[in-house]
């Protein structure tokens, strides 16, 4: 196999959800996922969180493979 370097081109996945319970959806919805659950998901993707920030609208995480 040709010697390969680090693959820059990303894979991008966007998932949309809807909820019957207006409280969950209007307030925080997926943002209620605890960090342990997020880490479980990221473990499946071989990633870890190296930096995080959030505001009124959403949470943003920088990941490392």
């Amino acid at each position, binding site marked *: *196999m*040709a010697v*390969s*370097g*680090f*693959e*820059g*081109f*990303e*894979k*991008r*996945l*966007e*998932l*949309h*959800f*809807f*909820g*019957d*319970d207006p409280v*969950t*959806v*209007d*307030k*925080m*919805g*997926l*943002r*209620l*996922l605890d960090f342990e*659950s*997020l880490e*479980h*998901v*990221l473990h*499946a*993707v*071989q*990633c870890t*969180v*190296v*930096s*995080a*920030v*959030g*505001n009124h*609208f*959403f*949470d*943003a*995480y*920088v*990941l*490392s*493979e």
Partner: protein
Amino acid sequence: SSLFVYPTKIIIKTCGTTQLLKSIRPLIHFANNLGLTLCGCRYTRGSFIFPKSQPFPHTNFKEEVIYVEENLPNNLCYRKASVMPSKLPSYSWHVFTASDQTQLPYFALKPHSPDVTFTVEVCMTELDRLLARKFYKKAGDSKTGDSAGKEMTELTGIDNINPGAFICDFAFDPCGYSMNGIDGDRYSTVHVTPEDGYSYASFECVGSIYDDQDDIVETLKKAVQVFKPATVSVSTTSNSHEVWTRVAHAMEPLGLKCRSCAMDEFPAAGTIVFQTFTAARR
């Protein structure tokens, strides 16, 4: 790589040889525990530089689509996979979308209305070597990833792409950089692999047809100027003619000539326009 979590939307964007699609099943499970049900999925990627290095289920697009379909619930019945071509053989845009009927009535009611918000995904290769070198940590530099990342952000002008955004950045050893910008309900993100021979950078942001149309033009210009790439592809999720013609306007002053433009419709998920540009001197 980046993760963005909204109340009803989650976006994961990873580079390298990660098995991104393996996140679908656990995410659906945890969201269900919160009373949330999946109603839409969009998977996109360019063409890998090292496709043979990709593990299952990413060894080819057909295998990715099969894997996604096997992990989606049946209510997402409107599905489409498409490989959007360009005139550059190693530049295609791979798209898979799936939606459930609860979204279709909305979309069907306004089949040709311009999508209000849109996502712009920019992929850049053959970066300017001097500019790419700015994304290497200095030998013996004891700075943490955070502080080295902050230094790179300021040194390269990435903080000027959207001066109103709060930036969360990180530099990797010995090279490489990722940043997320947050500005109200809008994210932006930059990922850089600066190694010569396979240098790559991406920029992604969200726009709206109600924005001042020069906003997206200026943003894209500044983002591409950071890297001065020889080849750029831009994918926009908008059926507004205005949006993707503006993308081309943003590239021309940078000496980048449009070489291809492909458009495709995805049921209950809207339109995607895929454009490629190369340095006009070619």
